[in-house]
C-alpha cells in the first residue's frame, strides 16, 4: 500500500508564478511571502514523496463554460502548462501518476462519485504554483502528479461536505494502492479574496488566521460550513478554500501542525500555507 507522508494546504495565486518568472521574488513586496515557504520546501525535500495529489480549480483556462465538471480527475501520462493569456510559462511538463489515478477513479465511482475522467488536458496556475512553492524550479519535477479539479467558478459549486467525503475516498484509494509510493496531498486555493463585485479587494485576515490555526485540529467548523458561509467569510473567490478540505479529510483525525505561514496581500489575496503530518 502507498503511504500518505503529509498534507499541505497552500495558496496558488497566479502572481506568485509571475513574480518568479519576473525574478522579483526578493523584492520587498514578495520576499516576506516567499521566505515563509522556505521551511515548507525543506520539509518536502526531506520527505521525498514520489507522488503529489494536487487538488485545485481551473480558472477559465482549461475548462470553458460549455462543459463544466463538478469534479475532474487526471489519468494522463503528462500535463503541460496551459497558456493563460501571457504565453505558456517555461516550466517543465508534469508527469502523471497514471496507475494511482486510475485506481482512484475506480474507487471514486465505486463510492458513488461521478468524476470527469481526463486523459488529455493541460493545467493552469492552480496546480503549477503549489508545485513551484514546494519543489522550487527544478529541471524536472521530482514527483508525479495526480490532479483533481474542483469547480469553484460556476454555481452550483460542490458543497464543503462533498469535498470532505472525497478526501475520505482519496485516502482509501492511496491506502489500497498496490505499491510503496510516498504520497503528499496538496489542497490548494484561497485564502480570503474577492475579485468580482463592489466588494472586490475584500480580504479577511482574521478569518484567514483562524483557518490556518484550526484546520489541523479544529476542522469541524470548517467542514460543516455552507457554501454561502465560505463566500461570506472568505470572499467569492476565497470559497476555493473548500479544496483544502479534500486534503484535510484524507489525513488522520488528529494531526501534527508542522508549520504555517500567512502573508497578506499577495496581489489581491490573503496567502499562506500549512503542513500537516499524521501523528
Amino acid at each position, binding site marked *: 500500500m502507498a503511504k500518505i507522508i503529509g498534507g499541505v494546504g497552500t495558496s496558488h495565486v497566479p502572481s506568485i508564478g509571475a513574480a518568479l518568472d519576473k525574478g522579483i521574488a526578493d523584492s520587498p513586496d514578495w520576499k516576506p511571502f516567499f521566505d515563509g515557504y522556505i521551511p515548507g520546501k525543506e520539509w518536502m525535500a526531506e520527505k521525498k514523496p514520489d507522488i503529489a495529489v494536487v487538488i485545485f480549480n481551473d480558472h477559465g483556462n482549461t475548462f470553458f*463554460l460549455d462543459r463544466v465538471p463538478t469534479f475532474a480527475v487526471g489519468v494522463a501520462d503528462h500535463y503541460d502548462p496551459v497558456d493563460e493569456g501571457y504565453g505558456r510559462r517555461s516550466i517543465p511538463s508534469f508527469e502523471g501518476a497514471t496507475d494511482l489515478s486510475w485506481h482512484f477513479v475506480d474507487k471514486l465511482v465505486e463510492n458513488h462519485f461521478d468524476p470527469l475522467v481526463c486523459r488529455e488536458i493541460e493545467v493552469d496556475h492552480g496546480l503549477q504554483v503549489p508545485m513551484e512553492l514546494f519543489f522550487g524550479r527544478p529541471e524536472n519535477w521530482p514527483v508525479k502528479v495526480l490532479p483533481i479539479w474542483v469547480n469553484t467558478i460556476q454555481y452550483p459549486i460542490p458543497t464543503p461536505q462533498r469535498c470532505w467525503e472525497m478526501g475520505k475516498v482519496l485516502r482509501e484509494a492511496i491506502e489500497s494502492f498496490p505499491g510503496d509510493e510516498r504520497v503528499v496531498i496538496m489542497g490548494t486555493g484561497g485564502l480570503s479574496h474577492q475579485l468580482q463585485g463592489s*466588494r472586490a479587494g475584500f480580504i479577511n485576515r482574521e478569518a484567514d488566521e483562524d483557518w490556518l490555526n484550526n484546520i489541523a485540529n479544529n476542522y469541524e467548523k470548517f467542514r460543516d460550513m455552507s457554501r454561502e458561509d465560505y463566500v461570506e467569510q472568505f470572499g467569492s473567490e476565497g470559497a476555493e478554500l473548500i479544496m483544502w478540505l479534500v486534503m484535510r479529510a484524507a489525513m488522520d483525525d488528529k494531526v501534527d501542525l508542522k508549520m504555517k505561514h500567512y502573508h497578506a496581500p499577495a496581489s*489581491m489575496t490573503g496567502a499562506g500555507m500549512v503542513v500537516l503530518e499524521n501523528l
Partner: protein
Amino acid sequence: MSDAQIPETPLFDRKGSIDGYRINKMAMALGDPANREAFKADEEAFLDRYKLTPEQKDAVMSRDWNRMVAMGGNLFFILKIAAVDPTPITAIGAAQAGLDHADFLKQRLGKE
C-alpha cells in the same frame, strides 16, 4: 445557492453563465496566441466573430470591467482581455469597487 444574497458579491450562477456566455467565450479564445494577435490587430472584428452585442462590444472596447462583470463576464475569463493590454488585476478590482486605483490599494489591500 443561486439566490444567495451576500452584500456586493455577485455569484456566477446560471444567470451570469447564460448572459455572459459570448463575452466569456471570446475572452477564453484569447488563451490562443493567434487569437490574441487577431484581437490586437482589429478588436471590433474579433468581437464580431463571437457575435457580441453592441453593448457588450462597447463594454469590452472601453475596458469597462464593471459593466463586463454586470453583463455576466466572469473575471477569470475577462482577465485574458486584461492580459492583452495588460491591465493589472488591482485596477479591475478598483473599477468594481468604485475607487481610484491608489485608494483601492490603500483601503482594500492596506498598501501605502
